[in-house]
């Protein structure tokens, strides 16, 4: 069991708080972290903490889920353009599937991602919800 979790455990810092990198050469903000900057191919640099704010670039709703996601179906997944630059794939939460639109401002929250395998492994990580209108 410990063994299987390693695959996910190693991604915890990215999944719980959107920690990526900033390229020391071209200053491109990188997420997920890489060993080499995808922009300029230099070795990637120091940690960069993303704000978790972004907008919906595209979205769709999944009705036929893969193994491990049956309980959540139907759910909405999106391409989210982070304010700092990179795009990521994530589920939307705390929103009606039909109410999602391209351009919707969203913010990161931590939620259950999936239940996997016979061992009942539960994965947590980032999802996005509509940004709360601040007072």
């Amino acid at each position, binding site marked *: 069991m410990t063994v299987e979790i390693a695959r*996910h455990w190693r*991604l915890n810092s990215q999944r719980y708080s959107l920690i990526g990198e900033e390229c020391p050469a071209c200053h491109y903000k990188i997420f*997920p972290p890489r060993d080499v900057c*995808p922009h300029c191919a230099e070795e990637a640099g120091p940690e960069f903490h993303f704000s978790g704010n972004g907008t919906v*670039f*595209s*979205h*769709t*709703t*999944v*009705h*036929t*889920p*893969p*193994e*491990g*996601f*049956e309980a*959540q179906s139907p*759910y909405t*997944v*999106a*391409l989210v353009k982070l304010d700092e630059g*990179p*795009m*990521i*794939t*994530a*589920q939307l939460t705390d929103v009606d599937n039909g109410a999602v639109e*391209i351009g919707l401002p969203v913010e990161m929250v931590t939620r259950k*991602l*999936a239940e996997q395998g016979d061992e009942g492994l539960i*994965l947590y*990580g980032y*999802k996005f919800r509509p940004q709360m209108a601040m007072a």
Partner: protein
Amino acid sequence: MRDISIIGIGQTPVGEHWGRSLRHLAYDALHLAMKDAGTERVDALYVGNMLSGEISGQAHIGPLIADFAGLRGIEAVKIEAACASGAAAFRQGVIGVASGYQDVVAVVGVEKMTDDVGSRLTAGLASAADADYETVHGVTFVALNALIMQRYMHEYGLSKGDFANFSVNAHANGANNPNAMFRRAISKETFMRAGVVANPVSLFDASPMADGAAAAIICPTRLAREYTDKAVHVLASAIATDSLAVHDRKNPLWLQAAEDSAHTAYRQAKITPAELDFFELHDAFTIMAALSLEAAGFAKAGQGTRLAVNGDIALDGKLPIATMGGLKARGHPVGATGMYQIVEAALQLRGEAGKNQLPHARLGMTQNIGGSGATIGTHIFKSSE
């Protein structure tokens, strides 16, 4: 580099082959191709397949299929590039013959989809995407295409109906292909009424997954005459890649690997896109058909659907596509699809495409897409005359 020709082709009907296992399907296609080429021996076998390990619990299918086809002992290996495994295997076959290490080479694309349950199949297909940053969020293969299509329609102000003719054309052509999974034409109304799978992708935007196998025998062109008088010449063979995850692409609405591999192929074949008589593209989803047409140089960004709307893609149009039904109607047996495209192109160039035979088929192109565009293989073929 040696010139290379196809001297034999074979395919099984695409569908649910409950009684035939992976090894049987591969044999069926190989057997037909070897008979067509009139050879009982080959120097090497390249197998294109994506999911044998995940679905059938069977890795190591190179020697398995070689032995089962009566070719025990020959060099045989599996090539995997998700849905582009077929083109990738053909590419390795071409490289093998070009190298001089091998003369007569067999390539088979095979996929056995009906050996596992739906949710595990869905998970298997999703393994073509980034497991750590896409799949883990519940994104399916359909969803990735839906995400691209949604933004594409938004960006270019398109509606559902703009994509209809890709599907209508494919089904019209599939009706005359005895190996197609769906052999009935559909109307635009049927397309418009179809249920949504993952918005905006509806049932008739998506291609059906099924079992299938298709094969070709290739050899140096100077040897081809010994085998056949209807050799099809391989003018170009190219593969390019892109980031695995859609979110990592410079432009998620542009198939960079299709542009790169097509342009390499045009250079190798010394032709311009306008000279092509037909194009077997990868219409796993209607959005992929549009993006392929754009990246291969037949339309500007955002204008791919116009070729469908105005009829250019029909058998009597300027650039016929999916001439035997495409992925949409012939079916999409993942790792076999690229080889179906090549076999169908060869049928057109040999004048053996039956009711769908193009009157003028001298130059044809195939393009096979892995995942949502991370591996794309493009090949150009020329008839004997």
